[in-house]
Each structure stands twice: as structure tokens, then as C-alpha cells.
């Protein structure tokens, strides 16, 4: 809001009745003159205040998402459609992820008539990941003396997504992913449709005439075709455990927080390495991000990720089982469990099933019992250690890359560790 000179405003408004009272009691003509002039001053100010915002409008332009802690640039476009110039206009905005409730900018002017001015402000995403509201936008102005203020709400309410801060998961190297400038060149040595040459074989009628390799045909004396390899897009499928029964902890130390932050970092790293990522989760509202690559796809995946809640009823292993036929050969399937209370034999079966399809499994367990309990008693310490030991044995025995994360682990320090998936310590 514009500066509230409450004392001087009180003087300006209270002075008139005081002078009128004096004029009435003392019967002095000049005091009536003071009252008349004072009234004129208030009237002129009131009339000027009604014109203060005439013809002005405001709109916001901002990229609709950012990571935690990022600096965000917001453009406000102020339009003056009236022929008069505008002076001392205050622009108000509410940037939900920011620390302050409202942001205020001053355009002292002069903004000429029939003109548009673009103003920029910078703020920071100070709050945790989630979906926030931007707006409403407001325009405030006043008469020249600031006695009568006017403020107009202009709407402009929109949403803004704040993604969790991501860390490069270096341990992902262990599961076969590698940085590449041309990820589409990764192929498998099986006859397919890629541009990578594999060899020459005899022509068969189903090949068609266009595929005949004429130099080889001339050399061999019979029709021959060139064989190329199968494209193998490096794919990264992420399965989230969003089962309601696995809720634990509150705030930053909760199972959901660990699942979402770890998932975001995995997705980020996989995308940076040129992999095609997809996300599956069975919450109340199903999370399904089909395979895709690039920053826009990552933004979409993260946007879906920050909207999840642990309110699902389906077991994550069932979800993997259902999706398994659709997983491409050579892809990676990362399963993010929100608990360590899992049936080891079912996990073993799942790993086995994935490997049969040529899919590399990656298992990450968030130890929900290490967080403050929400709606169920935590495992006793001995049983918790025993469960963790069973999972370690599973990872070790089957040579599956994986990790167990608990309340004592700082994700910012753990996720970038190169040996994160080398085997839980």
C-alpha cells in the first residue's frame, strides 16, 4: 500500500471540523474563510483521487515454475489507456512462494498517456515445493496529497509450481546410464530400424525392393540387403510408492518428502543424461507421465510429482507388475518404496521379472519407521534393523543397485554420493 500518513491525514480531515467549531463559537469571518478553503482542498483532493487510476491496467508475465530457492523474474505490464500521464502508482502482487505475503512496487512515473510500460521485479522461491497462488494484482494510487487512497484489485490469479531442489544422483552411473551428447545413437545389436550398420544378408521377398543394397548385390551376385540395429532409447521408469498405509513423519522429515525429493533428483539426473523418463504412481489421483525427454517433459513430470499425496491403496509392486510388459528392453526401472516393511520374496520376484525382460532394476527404500509415527506404531528398533538387514541381503545377493534412506540421512548430502547405490552400508 502507498504510505499511510495517518497522522497528517487525521490533521487534514480533523482540521476542518475544528475550524468550523471555532468559526461557530467565535464568530470570526476569517475562520469561515479558512473552513471554506480547507473544504475546497479536501474536495479537490477527492476529485483528483478519482482520476488517479483512470485508464490504468496491469497484467503479469511469469514462467510458471521454478525450483526451491530459485530467483524468479516477474514482469508486470502497466498500461495507461487514458490520455493523461500517470504518476506515483503502486503495483501490488502476491507471489505465493515468496516469504512476504505481498510484494509492492512503485512506479513513480510519469507514464505518458496511451503507453505501455514493462516493469520487472525479482523475488525468490522461499517456500518448500508445492503449488502456490500468484495474485491478485492490485493497483493503488491517491490524490497528489495522499489524502484519499484508491486501490483496485485486478485479478490476475494464477498458479505457480515450485519443484523440489534437485541433486545430481551420481550413483545412477552404476545402473548403466551414461552421459551422452547423442542419446538416440544408443542401439542394441539386433536387426531393427536404426541408422547403425550391422551387416549384410540375403534379400527376402518381405524386404521389398527399396531395401536392396546394390553394391553388395553386385559383389555377391545375388540380391542382398543391409541390416541395421534396433534403436535403444535409454529409458528410465520411476515407480512411486504412494500407499496410504506407508505415511510417516511430518514436514521435511516425512516419507512423502523423502519420496518426492528423491524422485525429483532421479528424474532430473536421468533427463540430464539423455534418458527418456516416465513416472507411475498409484495415489488417489493416478500419476502417469508417459515416456519422454527434454526439459519440457521433465517440467511436466515434476509438476505431476509435486501434486501427489500418500493416499493410494495400491501396492507399488502390483503397479510394477502391471506396467512390466510395457517396459522397453534395456531400460531402467527405479522403484521408490516409502517403507522397509516389504515382503522380500515379492520384491525378489519383481526383480527377477524385470530382469527377464532385460530391464535393470533400481530399488530405493525410504525407512518410514525412522520418522515420527503418524497413524501406526513404528517397528521396534531390533525389528527395524532386522528388516533393513534383510533388504541389504536382497540387494547384495541379487546384485541389485539400491539404497535405504532414513531420517538420519540428509538428502542433499546422500543423493550426490557416487556410491549411493553401491550397496547400503
Amino acid at each position: 500500500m502507498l504510505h499511510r500518513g495517518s497522522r497528517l491525514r487525521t490533521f487534514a480531515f480533523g482540521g476542518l471540523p475544528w475550524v468550523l467549531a471555532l468559526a461557530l463559537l467565535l464568530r470570526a469571518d476569517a475562520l469561515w474563510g479558512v473552513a471554506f478553503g480547507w473544504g475546497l482542498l479536501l474536495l479537490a483532493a477527492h476529485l483528483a483521487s478519482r482520476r488517479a487510476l483512470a485508464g490504468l491496467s496491469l497484467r503479469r508475465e511469469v514462467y510458471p515454475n521454478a525450483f526451491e530457492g530459485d530467483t524468479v523474474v516477474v514482469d508486470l505490464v502497466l498500461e495507461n489507456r487514458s490520455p493523461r500521464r500517470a504518476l506515483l502508482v503502486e503495483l501490488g502482487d502476491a507471489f505465493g512462494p515468496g516469504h512476504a505475503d505481498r510484494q509492492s512496487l512503485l512506479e513513480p512515473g510519469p507514464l505518458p498517456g496511451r503507453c505501455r510500460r514493462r516493469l520487472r521485479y525479482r523475488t525468490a522461491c522461499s517456500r518448500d515445493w508445492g503449488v502456490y497462488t500468484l495474485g491478485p494484482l492490485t493497483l493503488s494510487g491517491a490524490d497528489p496529497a495522499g489524502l484519499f487512497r484508491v486501490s483496485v484489485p485486478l485479478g490476475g490469479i494464477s498458479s505457480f509450481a515450485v519443484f523440489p531442489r534437485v541433486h545430481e544422483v551420481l550413483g545412477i552411473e552404476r545402473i548403466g546410464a551414461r552421459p551422452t551428447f547423442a542419446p538416440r545413437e544408443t542401439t542394441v545389436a539386433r536387426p531393427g530400424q536404426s541408422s547403425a550398420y550391422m551387416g549384410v544378408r540375403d534379400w527376402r521377398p518381405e524386404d521389398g525392393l527399396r531395401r536392396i543394397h546394390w553394391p553388395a548385390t553386385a559383389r555377391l551376385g545375388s540380391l542382398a540387403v543391409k541390416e541395421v540395429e534396433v534403436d535403444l532409447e535409454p529409458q528410465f521408469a520411476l515407480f512411486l510408492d504412494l500407499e496410504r498405509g506407508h505415511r510417516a513423519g511430518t514436514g521435511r522429515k516425512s516419507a512423502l518428502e523423502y519420496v518426492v525429493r528423491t524422485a525429483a533428483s532421479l528424474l532430473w539426473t536421468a533427463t540430464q543424461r539423455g534418458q527418456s523418463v516416465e513416472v507411475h504412481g498409484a495415489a488417489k489421483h493416478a500419476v502417469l507421465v508417459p515416456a519422454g525427454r527434454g526439459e519440457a517433459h521433465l517440467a511436466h513430470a515434476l509438476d505431476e510429482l509435486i501434486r501427489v499425496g500418500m493416499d493410494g491403496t495400491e501396492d507399488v509392486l502390483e503397479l510394477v507388475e502391471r506396467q512390466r510388459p510395457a517396459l522397453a528392453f534395456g531400460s531402467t526401472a527405479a522403484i521408490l518404496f516409502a517403507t522397509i516393511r516389504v515382503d522380500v520374496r515379492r520384491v525378489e520376484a519383481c526383480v527377477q521379472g524385470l530382469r527377464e525382460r532385460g530391464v535393470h532394476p533400481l530399488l530405493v527404500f525410504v525407512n518410514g519407521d525412522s520418522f515420527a509415527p503418524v497413524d501406526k506404531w513404528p517397528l521396534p528398533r531390533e525389528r527395524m534393523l532386522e528388516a533393513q538387514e534383510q533388504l541389504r541381503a536382497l540387494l547384495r545377493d541379487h546384485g541389485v543397485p539400491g539404497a535405504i534412506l532414513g531420517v538420519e540421512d540428509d538428502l542433499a548430502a546422500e543423493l550426490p554420493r557416487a556410491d549411493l547405490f553401491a550397496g547400503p552400508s
Partner: protein
Amino acid sequence: MLAARDLLLWALSVLTAAHALLAWQAAPAAAVGGLALLQGLALSVAPLVGSRVFSGLDAVGRGRVRVLLGLLHAGLVLVTPLVVGAAPALLPRAALLLAWLQVPTLLLAASEAGALAALMNAGALVALTALHGGLAAASVVTGFLPLLSGFLVFDHWARTLAAHPRARVPALRFVGARALSLAWPVAAGTVAFFLLVPPRPAESVLVAASRGVRAEPMGVAHRFLILSLLLGGGGILTAVRLFRRSPRGAAPSLEALEALPLEDEALPPEPAPPLVPHAGARGRILRAYLRFLSDAARRVPRRHPFETAREFARRVGEPVRPLRTLTELFMGARYGADEPTERDAVAAEGAASEIRGAWRRR
């Protein structure tokens, strides 16, 4: 901006003090000149001294001394003109007291409370001069109100810019023009008033002059003054306690950010208003809607060619009822098969007027 504000406050103080002192012959012209210099000096050191004085006062009794002094001063300036109006013998002394009191108030004028004290003091001096009547009264009122307008304008700008320390400061001439735009109607109106009604002295002053009352009964008048001060201060304190609104909940936190101006762009010229080929009720409804669009273009971004009337109404938002009425009548008149009735045309024109009225009131 601050220099202009201080200059106006000084001019206002000197004007009112000089008029009061000279009109009531409370001090010679040389003393008035000295007082003006002293007031200028006080105002020039105000930024340094004011905050120290306030912090010193706040250190004693957790700010109660400051509140008490403020109340006493407010009581003095509010009640004095009334009291001395009833006892004109006290007028020269009251003028002298308030004129000298202006010096310490100007020392505190860097703060809002100090500026308020100085303005109240000046207002009381104007009231004292007004009791004298004649040219002195007319000239002090004619000078005081435009100077007050100018001071309020510059003070408002200075405080607003202080609240946004990284904002650009516009050229002084723009602020000066704003101050003039507010001050000239006030000055012109006051001059016209005094041309029509030349100010006579207050009735009590006339009575005192006719009876030859000079210096009696001074003791009674002084007691009356002190009693009035106490009553005035107590009355203000009671009123503040009674009517002060306690804040509800925590105030929203506000972040003053720097606005970086990127570029200015001229808006495209307004397209010519389309002609309405229809006559009768249909034409009246269409013309009412076009008038509404023309008004709306000054408030919200113009209606796009791809935007339906209902979509545009949703975007405009307020006022809901007449907007809905006008939009529906327009849809019927523009796309409907039936000829609208005279009643529909009146309703559409009424809705358009209602929308325009609501926007003007905002």
C-alpha cells in the same frame, strides 16, 4: 523532495508566526525576522536532532513522556484559540507563546509526529490571526492553505519514496505541477471568498475593543487557560482511548521491491467505433453494448475478436448483475431471431448506465 517539503514547512511557519505576532503587536518586526531565522535553523538541524530527542524521550517511561507531551501540545493548540477568543486580553501572549513553540516543533519535523505538531501550531496561529480580521487575516488564510496543500503533496511523495528506497525519483517539476494543481483552486477559492466577505474581527474582540478591555482580568484568564488545557488534553486522551481501533490479527508482511523499467511501448490507436446498421430496439441494444465496450476498454484490456460476449463479461467481472443482463440482451439482439422489445432496449440501456455508474464510483 525533502528540501522542497522543508522549505514549504518553513514558509508556512514563518507566514503564520509573522502574521500572528504583527497583527496582535506581540513582537516588533526585527524579532519576527530573528524568529524566522531561528525557525530555519531548527528545520535545518531537524534530521539530526529530531531522532535523538525522540529516542531520549522514549528512554524515559517507555514512551509515555512522549505521549504526554504530545497530548499537552495538542490540548494547547486546540484549546488556546477558543480560550483567547473568549478572553481577547490574552491574544498577544498566546500569539507569542505559539510562535516560539513553533521552534521546538520544527526541530522534530523530520518525523511525522513532529510535522503534525508544527502544522497544528501553525493552524492555531492562523486561527489567532483570523480573530483579528482585516487584511492580516485574509492574507494569512490565503497563504496558509496553498502552502499546506503544497507541503502535504511533497510530504506524501517524500514518504512514499522513502517506503520504496530503490524506486526512481521523478523530476521535481512533475511533483511541483501536482502540488500546483491542488493548491491553485484552494488559493483562488479563498481569495474569491474574501473578496465577497471581507473578514471582520471576531465578535469577542469587537466587544472587548468597544468596552476598552485591555489587561484585566488577567489572573482569571490565566486560570481559565490552564483549566482548558487540562480539560483539552484529557478530552483528547479519552477520545483516543475510546475510538482507537485495535488491530485485528497480524498485519500482512509487505516486501517493497525494486521495479526495473524495461521498455515503453505506445499503445495502438483506438479503432473507430463500428456503425450499427440496425434501427429500433435491436439497434439501441447494440449501441448500448458498444458504449459499454468503449467504457470497458479504459479499464480492462480490449475485447479480443475471438472472445465471446460471455467470456468478456466473465473477464470484466464486476458489477455482475447489470453485466449479465446487458450481455444476455446483446446476445439475443445480435444473434437471436426474435426482434427485441422496447422493454429490452430500456433494460439494456439501464444496465449499461448502471455499469458505468459502478465504475465511476470505484
